[in-house]
């Protein structure tokens, strides 16, 4: 197996890796020795063994294990909660869209009604069926589906046309997620994949500079004849994640890490030219996090952070709209009908919703500029209430925390860094936009993962969920390969 067993570059990673290997190792070896193999095989054939034991016997005898049995092995017995979440999601979506249709009473509303037959099966299949036939984490999937459902239902009530399109985006994104899961699980030649993603990423990232138009002070959208209009900076996030994970894991010296750093810096420069500063910030912070995890080098990380602060100050000096953003963060009431309008309307919406919300379809969310994408959190707080808003944020934390525990089981630094990068990126983005909407930090125009309207955003977020699934899958496949019966080995 070429490059199979990688030496961990970082202190943190290697420690975590060792701990995991150490924790799992005795479980199998010890039990293998404890009973006579021949006797156990007999028992297995007679059907007297528990699931975990069956699996072990099977793997000893045949060397082939199904995904369902693998789930038993890795201990993800989350069936009941997942089923509950999936059913709740389905009911929520069905009722929500029904209400939305009743609320709008127009043809678009009727379309939402028809869309129930698309979104509900999609959610159920992806939450309940997919994790059984392929390597996936059912909990992450179910919660992600719920978040998407909340976004779609909200959009269908406040902007039915967008809501219906969002359902299509959601369907396509689920497909992309499955592809990404398979890719991460199966692929061996990361080098080629990373190179391809980097080249393709840079290529599409510069497209808006050539074909794009200035829109809201940024030039980060592009319309292509076949593909339609999309935001390349969303998709390139995947390239960044792979580049960081690959170059930071396989190579230990700074020079060897350089390709990924150069790639990120190139991306940042292009994003700066497009004035897509919010996304640039996400790229930058994620890189910093992955860099620190990979090498554990505090001075260098601090240097990188210092560079970022310098760039931020430079950006503040250079771009007038950054100055406005910061001023409006400090005191939006200084210009309540101009620069501060958006944030004030968001705060008014959140506070008007009260603890339990004005009710679905109630209130006047459309007063907030960008209510359907960046500011959807304010709309959700207005309609569903502040408690619901906080609980939604908690769901993000649960998804990411679950992902972190799964990644910690991983024994390869590449998948580990890939996973941490993904978690960091999703977490940072969620924090940035939520913090911006509630005026905790200056507003940066990024979307709320899974909730905001937008195909590119949905696609990249689901692809990231696919990466997380794939890491689980890869780790399960590796566990299988390292089973005693299969002749694998631990390190």
């Amino acid at each position, binding site marked *: 197996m070429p490059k199979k067993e990688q030496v961990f570059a970082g202190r943190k990673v290697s420690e975590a890796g060792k701990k995991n290997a150490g924790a799992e190792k005795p479980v199998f070896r010890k039990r293998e020795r404890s009973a006579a193999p021949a006797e156990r095989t007999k028992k297995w054939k007679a059907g007297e063994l528990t699931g975990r034991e069956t699996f072990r016997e099977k793997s000893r005898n045949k060397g082939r294990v199904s995904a369902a049995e693998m789930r038993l092995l890795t201990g993800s017995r989350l069936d009941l909660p997942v089923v509950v979440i999936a059913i709740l999601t389905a009911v929520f979506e069905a009722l929500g869209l029904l209400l939305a249709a009743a609320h709008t009473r127009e043809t678009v509303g009727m379309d939402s009604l028809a869309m129930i037959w698309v979104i509900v099966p999609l959610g159920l299949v992806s939450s309940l069926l997919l994790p059984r036939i392929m390597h996936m984490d059912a909990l992450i999937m179910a919660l992600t589906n719920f978040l998407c459902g909340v976004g779609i239902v909200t959009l269908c009530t406040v902007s039915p046309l967008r809501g219906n399109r969002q359902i299509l985006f959601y369907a396509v994104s689920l497909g992309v997620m499955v592809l990404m899961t398979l890719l991460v699980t199966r692929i061996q030649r990361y080098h080629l994949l990373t190179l391809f993603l980097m080249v393709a990423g840079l290529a599409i990232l510069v497209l808006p500079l050539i074909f794009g138009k200035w829109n809201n002070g940024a030039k980060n959208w592009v319309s292509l004849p076949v593909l339609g209009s999309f935001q390349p900076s969303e998709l390139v996030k995947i390239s960044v994640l792979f580049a960081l994970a690959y170059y930071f894991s396989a190579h230990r010296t700074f020079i060897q890490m350089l390709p990924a750093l150069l790639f990120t810096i190139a991306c940042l420069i292009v994003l700066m030219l497009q004035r897509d500063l919010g996304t640039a910030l996400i790229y930058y912070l994620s890189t910093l996090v992955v860099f620190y995890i990979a090498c554990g080098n505090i001075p260098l990380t601090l240097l990188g952070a210092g560079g970022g602060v310098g760039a931020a100050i430079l950006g503040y000096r250079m771009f007038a709209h950054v100055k406005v953003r910061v001023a409006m963060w400090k005191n939006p009431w200084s210009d309540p009908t101009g620069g501060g309008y958006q944030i004030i309307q968001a705060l*008014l919406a*959140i506070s008007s919703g*009260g603890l*339990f919300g004005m009710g679905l379809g109630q209130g*006047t969310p459309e007063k907030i500029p960008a209510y359907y994408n960046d500011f959807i959190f304010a709309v959700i707080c207005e309609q569903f209430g502040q408690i619901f*808003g*906080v609980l939604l944020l908690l769901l*993000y934390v649960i998804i990411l925390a679950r992902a972190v525990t799964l990644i910690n089981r991983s024994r390869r630094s590449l998948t580990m860094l890939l996973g941490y990068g993904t978690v960091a990126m999703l977490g940072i983005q969620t924090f940035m936009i939520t913090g911006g909407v509630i005026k905790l930090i200056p507003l940066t125009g990024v979307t709320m993962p899974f909730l905001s309207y937008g195909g590119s955003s949905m696609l990249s977020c689901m692809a990231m969920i696919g990466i997380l699934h794939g890491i689980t899958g890869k780790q399960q496949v590796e566990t299988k390969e390292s089973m005693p019966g299969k002749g694998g080995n631990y390190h």
Partner: protein
Amino acid sequence: MLLLMIALFCLIVAYFCYSVYFYGGRWVANPYNPRINNQKQYVKMGSVMDRSGLVLAWSDENGQRRYHKDARIRQAVSQVVGDSGGKVSTGADTFHAQYLLGFKSSIFERLGDAITGKRQEGDSLELTISAELSRYITEHFPDGKRGAVVVMNYRTSEILAMVSLPQFDPTNLSASLADSEAGALMNRCTQGLYPPGSTFKIVTMISAIDHLPDMDNFAFECTGYYPVGHYSVTESSAHGIQDLRSAFANSCNTTFAALSQQLGYKLIGDTARQLGFNENFMFNDVIVYNSSYPADDLSPEDLAWSSIGQGRVLATPLHLTLIAATIANKGIFREPRLLHRIITAGGQERMLPFAAPDRSAVSSETAARIEADMMEVIRRGTGTRAALNNYTVAGKTGTAEVSNDKSVAAHAWFVGYIREKEAPYAVCVLVENGGSGGRVAAPLARRALQKAIDLKLN
């Protein structure tokens, strides 16, 4: 990583709760909130009553806002009640719209209305003010003058009257809107920032007692002027040798100018901050503009003028009432209350928002000493016209110059309270360009206090 994530989440949730809890009500009531007008189409607005249950404003079946039929009462409470159009953003009709328009209704109440098909009805508010007292004060306010009067129960911290002149008639708003110079829509009690004049000597006095040594044997010879920097603080006549109490009772500017030079910006500023100057007032029930004491060390003469409440020191009448109430409460600073009861459409009482915890602004010994000094003001000082029969009044007058032009009359101030606990009323009177505080403001304060006693407001 996990910890970092949870920390960020907690940060967001903590900030979210903080901002919604402390600012949420203000945001809902904001004139830029389109939801208020929107909600009016669906919800019948609740009524606003005074503390005796007298209905001051209500909505009829068509959703039209109605006001008390007696024009005198209607106008006397006009700024406190406000208008339904949101022109008076600090009025209860706008600032407490979250109750009146049912934003605070629970999900069950809303569901109940939805099932019975009844039009949702907002909560009714019983304010702590007394309409009768407000009307009386308006009637006895010097004719044609502008100004403000606040009466407060310092034991419960309830505002009993907030009268601001000129007043407007909510049934004929356009007339007041046309005359924007008069500022009738503004509540001068909470939004009017004025130089507090000699009433600020209470603050300087507290600072001196707390920070300077040997104040019992303090003596200063007032020669009628006290030179500081390039100017001098002057007095119309020389008071002669003054101890601290007589300087306070006679409101001797030169003595306090001299004290300020000993104290300096920082110490006076500390005391002022303790008493709420430069603080962002975030009271639940009323919007009060922030008072300011200049915290920068500009010049000795600026310091001298600041210490006698001139120059750049600014305060609202309500804030000065709170300072008087703080002295009356032995140094405890309390949040003022305007909501007496919140009554749901179903007739139940809703819980009032929590007030900020009381805090000790002045030590009780200092407060007792200042109280004795303030009683001296009424007994034989500048405030003799505020004296009541059967009750002991403590107070301080102020005559705040507002222009270098001597023909422009000064603002007349009086702040004080009744010492007896069975009539725990604090009062603040401001008459814009009224002249001498002792001659113009003090008699009005006495009338207001007497009326509050007569009405047995508790």
